[in-house]
């Protein structure tokens, strides 16, 4: 059997995914990278976008916003990819309703942004990015095939 790597996606709220995968593509702050088994240890920042894991030829897409990536070899010599995201959700969980909700929220926030003070600005900015990422990623995967 071909070598696999262990992918873990954690947010402060929960463990989103823990699975053995063949490869994984991640959006880092410097651009997208793909990690294969036996990758060298790496620490880098995560930007918002989609993480796509490949399991037996199936794509497993996750929408993520901000955080870190750590790649290392664990005790058993297996490559382990730990993703610490502020927010992560499987694309399958992004149903139409949720997308609509996110869209309207993004719009609302944009309007609010205009008459808010600086203190709230960053909070809104984060929320806005989250909503927009959800919409973008859901749109991207709407027509593609992926594993639920």
């Amino acid at each position, binding site marked *: 059997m071909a070598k696999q790597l262990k992918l873990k996606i*954690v*947010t*402060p*709220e*929960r*463990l989103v995914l823990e699975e053995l995968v063949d490869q994984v593509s991640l959006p*880092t*702050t*410097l651009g997208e*990278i793909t990690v294969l088994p036996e990758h*060298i*240890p*790496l*620490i*880098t*920042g995560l930007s918002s976008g989609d993480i796509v894991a490949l399991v037996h030829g199936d794509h497993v897409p996750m929408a993520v916003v901000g*955080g*870190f990536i*750590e790649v*290392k*070899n664990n005790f058993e010599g297996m490559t382990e990819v*730990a993703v*610490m995201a*502020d*927010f992560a959700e499987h694309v399958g969980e992004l149903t139409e309703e949720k997308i609509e909700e996110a869209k309207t929220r993004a719009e609302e926030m944009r309007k609010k942004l205009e008459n808010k003070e600086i*203190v*709230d600005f*960053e*909070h809104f900015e*984060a*929320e806005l990015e*989250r909503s927009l990422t959800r919409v973008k990623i859901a749109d991207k995967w709407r027509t593609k095939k992926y594993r639920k």
Partner: protein
Amino acid sequence: MAGTKEIKRRIKSVKNTKKITKAMELVAASKMKRAVSATLASRLYAEYSWEILTSIAKNGDRIMHPLFSDREKEKMTNKTLLILITSNRGLCGAYNAQVIKKTLQLIKQENKNANVSIITVGKKGDVAMRRVGQNVVASFFELPNNLSIRDVTQISKLVINEYILENYDKVLIAYTDFISALTQTPNIKQVLPISKSELKNLVESLGEQKDQMVLQKDQKIDYLFEGNKNELIGSLAEKLTRMQIYQMLLESNASEQSSRMVAMKNASEASGEMIDDLTLVFNKARQANITREISEISAGMASVS
């Protein structure tokens, strides 16, 4: 008959109260379960953040970031920022009173050499602090019950900004530690500057089985860092701060619900006892009435015959 009617009314009202306290007890119990599981869920994230931090530290460079290093002597402002976490509502036993008392003690201690400003989370703490005339710089009341990390962002951003602007020497947080459903202790911890030993304690207290693994892992891994290392450390520091505050809020939330549960349980029991007592009094009064009536009737009969 006047006595029995009043007693009956009282029994009824106590029964209604009991229903309410019972319902509150059940609600608090289920909320507590959720809060506890949320606390455990955030554990993994804490462990990984810690791991990354230690790997960065092991890689030779000292971590140089304002959020990590103590304030230099000449820049000392002698001011402390304290975040006080309390509940929005009462009826939760000594939960609020305990943490407020602890805070006031600390303020008294610190007041000799430092100025303490306060950020309050929860109405109860806010009211208490304003009453004693403390300097409350910000208050947060509208945190939802199932707290998510994004609700914490506003607090952590405010705290980090204030700290980086060098308005304060350190940031403390007063919260209630959830030990078990029956014991909660108020506690005060330092959030900023991030002290590594405190963070280590936090991670250790969170994961009983796993922490040993993390700590034993002393072998050095040569990490490749992509992107600006300082930026990475900066954003890691921000996230750690946020995560700490989040953790404290979750702990406090779990404590609040469990102490409310216990308080309501006691109230339900007390009202049960009260109902029993009142029923006894009611029966006695009824019996006295009957006896009196009988004796009146027989006295009437005797006078007729």
